[in-house]
């Protein structure tokens, strides 16, 4: 097992150390979070725990990446 595989499994097993919101709150706030990020504002300060959730939840992370890319395209 490579070191990076060990790290990946351990991160998945142990999750983020910081307090985090759940999937439902993440979905509720994701659009606002993404727009704050695109505006260069401190999204994590506005919605504490969402960044940590994205670290811990692969499904929400994928949806965040998509929404960020889609909304960024709209703004161009």
């Amino acid at each position, binding site marked *: 097992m490579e070191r990076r595989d060990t790290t990946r499994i*351990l991160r998945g097993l142990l999750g983020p150390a910081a307090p985090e919101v759940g999937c439902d709150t993440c979905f509720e706030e994701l*659009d606002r979070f993404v727009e704050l990020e695109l505006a260069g504002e401190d999204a994590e300060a506005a919605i504490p725990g969402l960044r940590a959730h994205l670290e811990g939840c692969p499904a929400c992370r*994928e949806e965040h990446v998509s929404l960020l890319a889609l909304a960024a395209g709209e703004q161009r």
Partner: protein
Amino acid sequence: MSTVTLRGVEAGASEAAVTARQLQDDESRAWLRDLRADGAVRDDALARLHELLVRAARFEVARRRVTLPHLRGDELDDIALEAADDALMSVLRRLDDFRGLSRFSTWAYKFALLEAAVKLRKRAWQGREIPLEPEAWNLFASARLAPDTEAELAELLGAVERGIAEALTPHQRRVLVALAVDGVPIDVLADRLGSTRGALYKTLHDARRKLRAQLAERGIALEEWLEES
């Protein structure tokens, strides 16, 4: 003098932000007004909203198509259209929940992205067996550690295995291993267990807290191993 200039810059930036915000609010208000109207105005708004949702669903399908190489282009487009239809229902059902804290289009997009992502993850796992027996797993069974693997790592992996076996309930163990080791998508697992994504994430979260606490009690330092190499 510099204070005056700074104030001028701040005022300019603030005016621009207010203008952008106003445009955004106007656009969102127009969406809400038209979707709540009757007749042709509403029909037109629904058609525009559906178009917007199809665009988002197709975007998601295009991003993920490498994970579904066996699906033809028309099958993928059917998934995108079905996702957009379902998202349209969700958006209309939840219209009163829109708080105007983002653009309406960004708020609506997330419903289409969610529907498309869930459908594609389920399709990718269709027919695949998910090992759910807690006894059936052996976390690092396939791990052939390199000969020069540090003793520290072997100790850590052993402690993690013991922590999972001893500190967690069978349900927590099943959920943690399926999601974090076997890589089962959370909505696929929720479907198989008759649960919800939110409930399973709560289980995962509690299991992780317990595991971290158990490792901390044993004096195992984790942070070094959790950093990206």
